[in-house]
Structure formats: C-alpha cells, structure tokens
C-alpha cells in the first residue's frame, strides 16, 4: 500500500496545475449540485415559510381560491359555524395583504402584512422581543433585520396613514419573499378598510383552526367542507406546498440538481478515463520495471479518491462563500449529508471509469506498448 501511496502522491505532485484544475472543476460541479438543493430550499422557505411553519392544525380557505392565498376571502359569518364543528377547539381570522412600508424612514419596500391575533392558533411564535399587546404594534420576520426590521424600530405604512412599532421577531415565517409583518387582526382590518375607501366589507383571507385534543384533522377538515360548500380546510404545511409557483420552483431546482448530479458523475468519469489512457505508457513502463498491476490500480484509485476529496474541499469552500455572500433573505445553509452523498456519487463514477481503463493495464504486454509509436 505504501508503494501505491508514494506513486499516487508523486503523480499528483508532478502535475500540480492539472491536479488543481481537476479538483477545481470537480469542486465547482459538486458545489453546483449542493447549491441547487440549498438555494431551492431557501427560496421555497422564503416564499412560503409563514404557512409551512405555522402552528395551526388547519387553515380554512375559500374553496374557489384553489389554495391561492391572495384569491381567498372567507365570509366572517362562517367563523361561528367553523368554531361549532366537532373537534374544533379554537378558531381565529387570518388576513394577508401586500403594501409598501418604510422601516425607520428607510427606502420604500413591499411587505406582506398579516393580521393575526396573538392568541390565534396561527400566531407565529416570537423568538426575540415580545408579542403584540396594542393595535399599533407588530412582529417581523428576522430574515429582514438587514433592513433595520428589529425590535424598537418603527414602520410607516406607505399606502395608508399609520405607524407600527416593532416589538418582536419571528424565525422562518417569511412570505412571498418580502418582509413579513404581523399585526393584530383588528389593525389589519383597519388597513384594508383604508386601502379600499369605496367599500366597507372586509373579509379575512382564511380562518386558522386549533383542534381539540385527540381530534382527527382529516375528519374535521371533511366536516367543515361538508357543512360549508364554499370552504375548504387543509393543514397549513400542505397549503404551503400548493401555493402558486411553489411546485414549479421546487421542480425546477430538483431537475437542475439531478442534471447537475449526472453531469458531475459523467465529468469525473470521463476525466478519469482520459487520464488513465493518457498514462498508458507510464503504466506500461512501470509494469516493465516489475510493478504488479494491483499496485498500479491501487495507486490510480488512491489518486482519484484524493482528487475527489480535494474537489469536495473546494466545494465546501465555495458553498461557505455562497452562505456568506447571499442576501440574508435567502438564508442558505450547507447540508453536510448532501455534500457527502454528492461526493460519494462523484467518487463512485470516477472509480468505475478508472477500473474500466485499468482493466486494459492488467492485460497489456509492456513491451508492446513501449514499442508502439506514441
């Protein structure tokens, strides 16, 4: 094994630029696959976190909205009917609207304003600061702290008169990839009323339901839909998955990651094969000098393993750089398990390609190779 190790080490050191180029290319490809996975997850979280992480057992929406939150309006008269359904312990209205805000007098940005009472089944848990206790207070998702959205800051609503004081932050509760604020439902109603001066009707976007202990969510959802044709009840995580665009985004990143994984395996295999062929003459010389084929195979496989390891190290650095440089609203974080799986796939493809190339070395007659023209 020590001879193989020496041979592999010298081969790598003899062509440092080639070693660096191969490790760099492998690293970039491995990083590409890993990034597709983590960036895809981060994008989906940023679009739908407010629903995906919601603590309510069921959300009740207008059946006609087809799961599209902006299209859902639930007539408030249904609130009592839903509350009276068997298995329902608590129910609260939820509202969502997009509007412009200025955080501490900063630039005008679009925001998602949620109306959820602090005791509602859908209320997001506050991780820093406190929950709202007054109508002009809000909690904000911490992903937008770089905009100054932190407890103590003030938010001016651009489209209507009003100022909110931020009193707490939430984690992973972003929506539509924009700053996400939560105010008491009554305050949200006022905002909608002010935004639509021609109409007095304000309907909640959805109703959030907490189930009684032991109640079956599916049975309660069916009971709600049976009693009220216009409504549909689904767990919030399912709703998050069915939001418009989420499916397309998720499948895009998954397709891209799959094709990139095939690419990294193919490239590592092809390069290995080319290198083994390139070294045919050197290997024949070593055979002529008495080196056993098994030693040559081990040396090549060892070198490949080292190259893949170097590539994985490059990939780790690249992903770490991406983690540091991506904006905080797309919080990507490296999954070591994914990196290991991708690296293993890369190594397997390269090792197989090398094994195929080395099969010829076992059979070759060194004299024939050395006599042959180059």
């Amino acid at each position, binding site marked *: 094994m020590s001879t193989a190790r020496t041979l592999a080490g010298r081969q790598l050191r003899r062509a440092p630029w*080639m070693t660096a*180029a*191969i490790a*760099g*290319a492998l690293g*970039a*490809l491995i990083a*590409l696959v890993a*990034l*597709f996975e983590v*960036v895809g997850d981060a*994008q989906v979280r940023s*679009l739908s976190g407010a629903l995906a992480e919601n603590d309510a057992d069921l959300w009740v929406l207008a*059946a*006609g*909205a*087809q*799961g*599209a939150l*902006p*299209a859902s*309006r639930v007539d408030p008269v249904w609130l009592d009917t839903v509350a009276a359904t068997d298995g329902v312990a608590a129910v609260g209205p939820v509202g969502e609207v*997009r509007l*412009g805000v200025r955080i501490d007098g900063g630039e*005008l940005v*679009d925001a998602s304003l949620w109306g959820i009472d602090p005791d509602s089944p859908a209320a997001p848990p506050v991780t820093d600061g406190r929950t709202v206790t007054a109508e002009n207070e809000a909690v904000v998702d911490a992903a937008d702290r770089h905009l100054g959205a932190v407890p103590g800051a003030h938010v001016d609503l*651009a*489209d209507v008169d009003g100022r909110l004081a931020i009193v707490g932050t939430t984690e992973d509760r972003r929506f*539509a*990839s*924009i700053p996400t604020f939560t105010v008491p439902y009554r305050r949200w109603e006022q905002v909608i009323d002010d935004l*639509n001066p021609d*109409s007095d*009707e*304000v*309907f909640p976007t959805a109703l959030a339901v907490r189930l009684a202990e032991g109640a079956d969510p599916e049975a309660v959802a069916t009971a709600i839909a049976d009693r009220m044709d216009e409504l549909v009840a689904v767990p919030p995580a399912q709703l998050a998955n069915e939001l*418009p*665009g989420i*499916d*397309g*985004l998720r*499948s*895009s990143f998954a*397709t*891209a990651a799959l*094709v*990139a994984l*095939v*690419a990294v395996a*193919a*490239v590592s295999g*092809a*390069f290995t*094969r*080319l*290198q083994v*062929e*390139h070294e045919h003459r050197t290997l024949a010389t070593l055979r002529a000098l008495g080196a056993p084929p098994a030693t040559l195979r081990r040396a090549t496989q060892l070198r490949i393993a080292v190259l893949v390891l170097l590539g994985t190290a490059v990939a780790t650095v690249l992903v770490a750089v991406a983690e540091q440089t991506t904006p905080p609203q*797309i919080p990507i974080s490296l999954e070591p398990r994914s990196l290991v799986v991708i690296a293993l796939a890369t190594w397997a493809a390269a090792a197989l390609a090398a094994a195929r190339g080395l099969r010829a070395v076992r059979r070759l007659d060194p004299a024939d190779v050395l006599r042959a023209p*180059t």
Partner: protein
Amino acid sequence: MRTATRLVWLEARRTPTRPIRAAVTLTVLATLALVLITLLDTLEQRGTGLLRAVDADLVVFNEEARQQVLRSRVPRPATIGVGFVDGVHEVGVLSVVPSTVTHDGEQLRSMLVGFNARTPAEPTRVLEGRVPTDGEPNIVAVDAALHRAGIDVGDRIVLGGSLEVEVVGVVAEAMFLQQPTVWAPPDVWARTGARAFPERGYAEALVGIGLVQVQIGEDPAEVAPAIVADLREEDLDVEVVALAEAIRAVPGASAIRVTFGSLVLLALVVIVVVSAGLALLQVDRDRALHAELRALGAPPGLLSATLLLRLGVVWLLATTAATLLTASLAAAVPPAVPLAVRPITLAATAVMLALAIGVGGAVGLTRLRGVDPAELLGGRG
C-alpha cells in the same frame, strides 16, 4: 485549413471513440447548461408572459402600487388624461385578479385579465378564434396554457366559481405569476372581481395599469415624464416606466433571474474549466505527435487549426446531442416543471457553449505553442 481538416478526419477514422468520448462529456455539461437556461427562461416567461403579450412602450401604475400589476389601480380620469399627453399615440387599461376556471368539473387556477380591446392592452398574438371586444357579455379568450389543459374555442367555462362564460378565442401563452390567463372584457372582469374581492367593491371601469404606445418618432423615455407631469397637474400621482422595467418589477422575476443566473454562470465557468482541461489533455496526449509534425515542417498554425477544428467538431456533436436530450426531457417531464425549449434559448446556449469551449481551446493553444520538437524527439520518441 484543408490539411487540418484532413488530419482531423484521419484521426477520427483511426480512433473514432476519442472525439466521441470528449463530446459525451461536453454533451452532459451542455445539457446541464441548456436545462438551466431553459428553466430560467421558462420560469421568467411564465412569470411575466402577460406583459410580454401586449404591444406597449410604457406602463402606467398608480404611485402606491410601486410597479406591481396586481396592486395597481390607476383611476379612470388618469387613463383618460394619458391619452391627451403630447407624444402618446394610444392608451389601454389592463387589470388582473387571481381567479379560477372550472371546465368539465375540473377547477384550475388562473389569472383573470380585464382589458380594453383595440388598444395596446390587447394581446398581440391570437392563435385561434378572436379576442372579446369591450361590452360583449359573458365571453372570454384563454391563453395557450389553458388551451393545452383542454379548453377549446366554443367551450363554456366558469370563472371564479360563479360566472359562466363562453370561450371565443385562444391567445399565445401569456402566463402571469406562473398562472395561465383568461382575457375578459371590462364588465366580465369587474363582475367576477367584485365577487372574489368584496373589499374592492364593483368597479364601473377597468382600474389596473395603463398601457401606452407612443407616436412614431417619439422617445418613450421623454414621453414618460411628460405623462407624470401632466397628471400631477390634475392631482393624479402615477408612475410611468418602460415595459421592460415593468417586466423586471414582476414579483419573483428578479429573484429567479439572480438565483438561476448565478447558477448558470457557475455552470458556464465549469464548462470553461472542463473544456480547458479536455484541450490540455488532448495537447498533452498528442505532444509527441505534434513534435513529430513540427519536425517534419508542419507550421504551428496547422497544429492550432487542428486543435480548434477538433474542438469545433466536439462542440457541434455536444450541442446537437444536448439539444436532443433537453428536448426529450422537456417532452417527458410533467407540465408543472417549467421546461419549455425555445429556439432562441437553444441559439443562445449554443453561442455560450462555443465561447466557453473557445476559451478552453485558447488555453490549449497556449500549451501547444510550447511544444519543442527537438526535446520531444530526442527525449521520448
């Protein structure tokens, strides 16, 4: 060039697997690049198709909307006022609300688009039938995405679970925020919208965005501030931007472009590195052969031409195979996956691949120039 071609041809005959193997490697990478670019393109088309479907120079938003089509509510006096601004040829109004379409018992998500016919708000490409005109009751046109889902001209569909209408035409795909679109006259839009969004009330006229065509010879960049200034005199605050800017402002469009764009860039860098690696391996492998050819009097230009020609053949094989693979993949995946190959995407990817391989080839050429016939013939021949 003829000698270089002959050399490449002879080599291909002698060892046909060599260019094919290199082509296979690049095919995989080219497929990766093509899939990424196609995903990016399709996501963008499906996100912003509505604005790409109209023929306008400028888009008018109410100031509070901050260039968001769904939120914009340009008041009627403002859209009328735009028509009187110097340099404006025509103006139309377009309004969008999220809705649903029920057809044969199946409910699909959609965006309901209210538009003024015979104005810049009308979709430019009608594939079948016609588009509705203002005032026509209970008729709509659907876009090609809904047509693919089985809705034909003459079918009756239900909008927003409440209003039954007849389909009179199919327009080219004009999806918005990843949803297919239904194009309706103002009254149909207003009735459906009022039912779906009670807080908005019933709008007697379309209130959404204004789409403006400027007169021939006028510069849209100069007309835009004139519109803003004229309307401000009437106490109407609007924001006027070029159509391309409005497309860029569609929610998610820039995030997708930046995210996927960065990953496409990374993929192209990898292709450059791999192409360079392949070219270097090829030069290294043929170093002795090149030395012999140089010793026999072959000019360096011939060897360079041979290398570039070889890479050109590999590029052609890889691009063709990648195109076929991506087109097959696009046909095989479910419609939810945004993978629709367009000729323009293919052409752009082919050019980018050529550039990437060209950069790789340039590295190989540098190495090729360093071949020393005497050293190689004496030392290793």
